[in-house]
């Protein structure tokens, strides 16, 4: 595992894996991190992490209005990334992805930033990841939940869907999908506070779409969507019928890596 610990000083690494707070600390999201890393190892991708030098990108601080805290985080991260000469970043979190890709350039940090769904698709296209025929998800009804910060914010709708296609799954769309996809309720720093008063929580509303789709799996591409949808499904006691999995976990599972 020594190569994992190698920080960006090693110039020959292909990509820096930005793990993110959820990927590092959240129990459920750590499983996504581990699945993704197993795929990277499996494909022989050399990568580095910042380890303890990584700090929150500042996304929830900025979106709650705390621009000062956001910039403190952003500037710290940019200094670290630039010091290591990082050029290419992959992350499993659409919020980290959006912030580093779209918001760091204004503060002096310009990198090629790739979301892990796009990265996995690239590995398959380049022939570095060969999916087995008739894997775990063959013919299974799977729906995909669009993360706002991948879809509407960055126009990434197809890469995650193509992964599902490659897994031989039967993709069933929810009634609100792609550019019309309904938020899970976590964005805009909502993850870190109770929702305002209303009739329902947003994840309860989204859970209705999931149940209606009759899918047995929900593919997620964001650790926060993962939390929201898992909670929503548990609340209606459908956890035995519908399982929420990140696309990295699905790919790893189909390859018997996890």
């Amino acid at each position, binding site marked *: *595992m020594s190569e*994992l*610990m190698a920080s960006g000083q090693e110039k020959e690494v292909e990509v820096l894996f930005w*793990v993110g*707070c959820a990927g*590092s*600390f*959240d129990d459920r999201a*750590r499983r996504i*991190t*581990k699945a993704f*890393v197993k795929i990277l190892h499996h494909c022989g991708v050399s990568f580095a992490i910042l380890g*303890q030098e*990584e*700090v*929150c990108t500042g996304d929830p*601080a*900025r*979106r*709650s*209005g*705390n*621009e*000062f*805290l956001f*910039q*403190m*985080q952003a*500037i710290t991260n940019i200094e670290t990334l630039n010091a290591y000469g990082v050029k290419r970043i992959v992350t499993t979190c659409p919020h980290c992805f*959006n912030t580093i890709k*779209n*918001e760091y350039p*204004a*503060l002096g940090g310009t990198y090629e930033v790739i979301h892990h769904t796009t990265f996995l698709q690239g590995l398959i296209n380049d022939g570095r990841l060969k999916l087995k025929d008739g894997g775990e998800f063959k013919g299974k009804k799977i729906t995909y939940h669009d993360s*706002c910060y991948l879809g*509407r*914010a*960055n*126009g990434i709708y197809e890469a995650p869907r193509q992964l599902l296609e490659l897994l031989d799954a039967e993709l069933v769309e929810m009634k609100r999908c792609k*550019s*019309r996809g309904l*938020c899970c*309720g*976590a*964005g*805009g720093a*909502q*993850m*870190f*506070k*109770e*929702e*305002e*008063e*209303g009739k*329902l*929580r*947003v994840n*309860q*509303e989204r859970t209705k779409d999931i149940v209606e789709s009759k899918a047995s799996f929900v593919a997620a591409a964001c650790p926060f969507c993962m939390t929201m949808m898992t909670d929503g499904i548990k609340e209606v006691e459908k956890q035995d019928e519908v399982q929420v999995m990140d696309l990295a976990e699905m790919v790893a599972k189909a390859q018997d890596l996890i």
Partner: protein
Amino acid sequence: MAFLQPLIFAIVTLTVFFLAFKKYRVIYANINLGKDEKIAGDSGTRFKNMMLLAFGQKKMFRNLTPAILHGFIYVAFLFTQIELIEIFIDGFTGIHRFFWYVLPLGGFYTALISFIEILSVLAFVGTIAFLARRNLLKVPRFHMDEMTGWPKLDGNLILFFELILLVGIFSMNTADMALADGKYGFAISGMLYPLIDGLGDTTLHIIERFGWWIHILMVFGFILYLPASKHLHIMLAFPNAYYGPLDGGANKGEIANMPRITEEIKLMMDPSAPMPEEDPNAEPERFGAKDVTDLSWKSLLDAYSCTECGRCSSACPANQTGKLLSPRKIMMDTRDRLEEKGAGLREHGADHDDGKSLFDYISTEELRACTTCNACVEECPVSINPVNIIMELRRYMILEESNSTEEWNLMFNNVETNGAVWKMPASDRTSWINELEAEAEAEDA
């Protein structure tokens, strides 16, 4: 007597144009109360954007039924301007149907007016359908909390105006056809005129003039009505698309940087950095927005461009789950406050403070409900971005008033002290590596 009509017409026209100029100048001045915002991109791409989104109504087609109905009224509106040109020529010179009698257009003119008549029938269908959607079918987005009183009346009034305008067009054309024994050959009035053919020439002339005046008076009324109405979008959708985001939404996730904060942080990190030059007497610029004058001019143009269709609010996750937030209301409140603020400044001078702000219209509860999911931005047919306004107000709340929630403060604290959103030590950032190793060992064993 022949000089009487041109004289009355000229007086009415000039009066309308004078009043309109005053009203539209107020709107222009109000929009300019906003802060500078640099608009990126070249004018060619911007023009293309405008042609697609405003002229071509591209976003409307996300929703086919209203797109077609709206399209009928829109296309009819565009082509009716040809008749309007004739009405103006007639008004000033007394030459009726200039394109037929003076320009040798002949059959082409027949085809053109017939086309307008067919479009007008479709516009009639569209208008009736819209009235039904608003009042009988109760499409939910027309019945949200903010759609009572004037906004509700405004939506219906314009549809009634449309019906009256159509009555004017057909009265004039049908009477003209009857007077000329159908020689113009118009498609729809050609079918209608036998119904009134028996009336005397005098009556027919009166009907023709009635239709003519109805048409032009509705147009004049419309010009003066627009500045107070949501229907201003028929003009402002164009500049709003021109100045709107260009990349088709590919970077909608970006929230604009605040360079003044960057300066402060850089100074904090490196005290030897040169101090930015500041006028010591100048009042420090506010962080975020407390009032409309703190918003970008583009946000103010957004507010005036809003047609209150509510596509934003019906796509909003907060609104759909019963929270107070409605992106449409954010836009309507911004416009209302801007009108109030602008009027106060014009009346009492540029330093006037009426003791009110945008927060008297928009509550913190509304602002805190936004998930920044951008569904509202995606849906808006006229390139409005409500999230920009929400973000500026949130910035003011946090940066100027420390108006946050306990939970958010906890998160801020964690980020500040541990560099993580949760209360976790940085040393735990790599604990997943230990887990991986342990799992691998367990497998090997």
